[in-house]
C-alpha cells in the first residue's frame, strides 16, 4: 500500500438534472478527482436498492445517487 486512499465511487445520475449538471461542470472546466464513474439513468426513481449494493459488491467504496 502506498499513497493516500482514493475511494472508487460509482454515481447514478438522473438524465434530466444531475447528468446535465455533470456535463455543465465540464463546460465550466471545474476540476474534480477522476475516481468517479457516472452511470446515466432516466430518473433516480429507477435506482433499485440492489443497484447500490451491487456497486459495493463490485468494488466501489462509495455510491452516489444524484437526481
Amino acid at each position, binding site marked *: 500500500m502506498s499513497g493516500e486512499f482514493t475511494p472508487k465511487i460509482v454515481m447514478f445520475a438522473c438524465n434530466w438534472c444531475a447528468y446535465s449538471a*455533470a*456535463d*455543465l*461542470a465540464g463546460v465550466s472546466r471545474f*476540476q474534480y*478527482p477522476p*475516481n468517479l*464513474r457516472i452511470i446515466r439513468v*432516466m430518473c433516480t426513481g*429507477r435506482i433499485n436498492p440492489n443497484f447500490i449494493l451491487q456497486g459495493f459488491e463490485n468494488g466501489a467504496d462509495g455510491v452516489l445517487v444524484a437526481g
Partner: protein
Amino acid sequence: MDKCIACGECAAKCPKKVTDTFNAGLATRKAIYVEYPQAVPLKYAIDAGSCIYLKNGKCGFCAKVCPTKAINFEDKPVAVTLQVGSVVLAPGFSTFDPQKLDTYQYSQYKNVITSLEMERLLSATGPFNGHLVRPSDHREPKKIAWLQCIGSRDINRCDHGYCSSVCCMYAVKEAVIAKEHSAEPLDTAIFYMDMRTYGKEFESYYKRAEEEKGVRFLRTRVHTIIEDRNTQDLVLRFVDDNGKLIDERFDMVVLSVGMETSKELAALARRLEIELNADNFAATDCFSPVKTSRDGIYVCGAFQEPKDIPYSVMEASAAACWAEADLAPARGTLTRTKTFPAERPVADEEARIGVFVCNCGTNIGGIVNVPEVAEMAKGLPGVTYVEENLFTCSQDSQEKIKDIVEKKGLNRVVVAACTPRTHEALFQETLRDAGLNKYLFEMANIRNQCSWVHSKEKDAATSKAKDLVRMAVARTRLITSLGQPTIAVEPSALVIGGGIAGMTSALGLADQGYQVYLIEKEGQLGGNARSLLTTWKGDKVGERLAEMIARVTGHQRIAVHTGTSVKASSGFIGNFETVVSGVSGDKVLRHGAVVVATGAEEYKPTEYLYGRDPRVLTHLQLDQAVAAGDPRLASADTVVFVQCVGSREEERPYCSKVCCTHSIKAAIRFKENRPDSQVFIIYRDIRTYGQREYLYKEAREKGVIFIRYGLDEKPEVSDKGDTLAVVVRDHVLGRKIELHANLLVLAAAIVPRDNEALAQMFKLSCNSDKFFNEAHAKLRPVEFATAGIFLAGMAHYPKPIEESIAQAAAAASRAAVTLSQESITVEGVVSHVQQFMCRACGECERACPFNAIAVQEVEDGLRAAVVKEALCKGCGMCAVACPTGAASVRHFGDRSVLTMVETAFAAGN
C-alpha cells in the same frame, strides 16, 4: 457557426480581457466568448468592439488554434427579410441603474451591489463559483442588508411609480440562499415598504424565511448609507416602526433594483408602431393581455408589465395561442418530413459493435490518450470495428459511420465523445440512415465528464476513458431495437368550467380549428365574472363577458354543455373518453386533451359580523350592490374595508392576490361619487403589484386612509345601532381608534372549490391549500404532470381576470401542441409488464407519478398491470416498486444498468 464545437481553445488563447457583463461586471471574460455556460446554441462569438484583430488587423490567435476552422473574421451582419403572419415580442427588461440615486452611493461604495450582482455572486457558475464573498476584500460577509423598491414605487427620484412585482420574492430567496451558502451564521435583513409575496406558495416561503431561517424583515426606508473608510463596512440609518432613529452596521448592501424598458426597446416599439403606456411597457387590454395595439403583434413577459417567470411563461404560450389562431390556415404548409430506409432486424444476430472514439480536436485527444483507448476497445467482447476520429460529429464522419455500418454489417454503435445530452440525437439519426434502430446506440462521455474535468491528470483521465468505453460497450451488448408505436390523436378538447378561463381556452382552441366541448356545472356561462364590476384598468366586465359568451355560444366549433358535470373519464393524451352528465342525461365525448378551468370561490367569512349584519359585505356582494344601484352605497358617510379576511392566516396561509387592488378600486369609486365620504382601508401589506400601484397612489391622493394591522391585533367590529364600530390600532398614532362605519366591506379570501372528485378521476394532485398543482411551478405553469391535461384560471391559484385569460390561452396553446398532430409517437424507453409474473398488487400504480400504469382486467377474471405507453416517461419507478420483477423499463433493464456497475473499475483506477 456550424463548425464551432465550443471547445473553448479560442478563448483560452485570446489575449484580450474584457468586463463580463453577464456576471454583472464582477468578473472578466475574453473578447471571444460564450455568454454563459448554458447558452443555446453553445457557440463562441467575437465581441467586435473588443477584438484586437477586428480593431487593428493583428492578432488572430483564435483562428490559429481553432481546430475546426470555425472563425471567420470577414463575417458581417446581414439584413434578412422574412415574410411572417404574426410577430411575438419577448424582449425582456433592463434593470434600473441605481447610480442615479446618491443616497445609496452604488458607484462609490464597493460593498453596495445590485440584486443582479448578488444573483451572480450566489451562482455556482458565477465569478466566485457560488462562494459568497463581498466585493471590497473578498471576505465572507456576516451581515447583509437588502433594500427594496430601488427604482420602483418611486416618483420622487426615478420616475418609476409602478411596482416591479418580483423584487420582494427574489430578495427573500437571495437572503435564504445567502444563508445556505454561508459557512458562518449570516445575519440577513430586508428593508421593505410592503412585502408583496402574492404568488402561489410565495407567502409560505416568506413565512418560512422569517420563522425558520431567521431572515429579518424591517418595514422602513433606509435614509442614508455611510461607508466606514477603514473597513468598508456600511452603516445604514433608518427610522424604525416606533419612530426611533437607528444606525446599524452591515458588511454588504444589496439594492433590489426594479425592472424597466430600455430606450432601445422603446425605439423598437416606435418602429413597430405599437403603443406603449406611460411607463414604456407595451399597452394591452385586460381581456387580451398579450395583444398589442397593432393587429398581429403580440407581447409577452416583462415588456408588457414587470412580472415573474411563471407568468412570463404563461404569457408566452398565450401569445403563441393567438398567433397560431391567426395562422391556422397556413399550419403545416412549410413542413418537410425526412424519410429513412427500412430498419434491419438484428435480434437474431450476434453483437457486432462499432466503436468510434473522438479526439474532439484536442479537447479529448490533448488529454486522453485516444489511440490507447481505441486499442483497448478492440479487445472488448462484441466489438468488431474501432476507429478514431478527429471529430466524430462532423458531417463527413456521419457519412463514414453510415458507410461502415453497412459495409461491416455492424448492428450496434458506440461513440466515445462528448455527451448524449447534446449529441445522441445526431448519431441516432445516422444509425437510422444506415438502417439501424436508433436505440442500438450508446455514448461514452469522455469529454464533458472526463477530459474537461481531469485536464491535469492525463493518465487517470485515459484510464477513466477506457472504463467509460468498456462500460458503454458492455451495456451495448444487452440493448435491443425498440419499437416506437404511433397513436392517433382525436383533434378535440374537453374544457371543464365555463368561466372566463374556460371560455378563453375554448375560444383559443376553436379559433385554431379544433372541436371543443365546454362543460359548465351551472346553468349559465360566466362564473365569478358575472358578479364583477370592472377590471383594475376599468374595463366593464359585464359588457366584455357578454361579448365573450356570445362568441363562445356562436362558435361553430364549440359545443356548450351547461348544467353539466363530468361523471367519469378514461384514456390518455390524444385519446380520452369522458362521460358527462347533464339535464338531458349522460353523454360520451371523445377528445384528445383536457383543460381544467373549474375556478374558485369567495370565502364566506365567519368574522366581523358577516352574515349577522346586512351592512357587512364581501367584495362580490359590493360589486353586485353597485351594479344593482343599492341606495345604501350613495348614502354611506363612512366606508371601512378590511383586508386579508380569511387569507394569510394559519388556516389559509396564502395571499388571495386580487383583494388589495379590488378594495382600492372600490374605495376610489366611493371617493369619486362622494368626495366628502370617509373611506378607510385596514390592511396588512398593500399588494398592488405592477402598475396597479398607481391605483394605490390615486386612492391616497383622493383621501382614502390606510391603517395597518397585524395578525396579533385584528380589528374588532361591533354593532352600535346606526353604525358599525371598528376598533383598530393606528400604526401612525400608535393608539387604538374607533371608526363608525355605515358599510363594512370584507376582502374575503378566494378559496378553492371541492376538487376531490375531479382530482381522483384524472389523477391530478393538489397543494396543501387545495389548489391544483401544475407540473412545474416556473416552467410548466399550465400543464399537469399527466400528459394531455392542462390547467387554467383560479383552480390553479387566485388571480385577476387578465392573468386567468393569459393562463387559459396558454393552456389552449399547450393543448394544441398535441391536437395539431395527426398522431403521437411513443418513445421506445417505456415500461412494460410481463403479465405472467404480475400479481396485480398495484405497487407500480401507486409509484407512477405520471398516471401511466394501472391494474386492470386484461382477460376474463385476470387482473394485471398495464402500461399506457403514451403517458410513460420511462422513469422506471414502477420497476423498482414491483416486488416480483414483472415491471421493467425497456433500454434500462436491471442487467443493462448492472453490467455498467460491474465494469466500472475494470482498469483498476
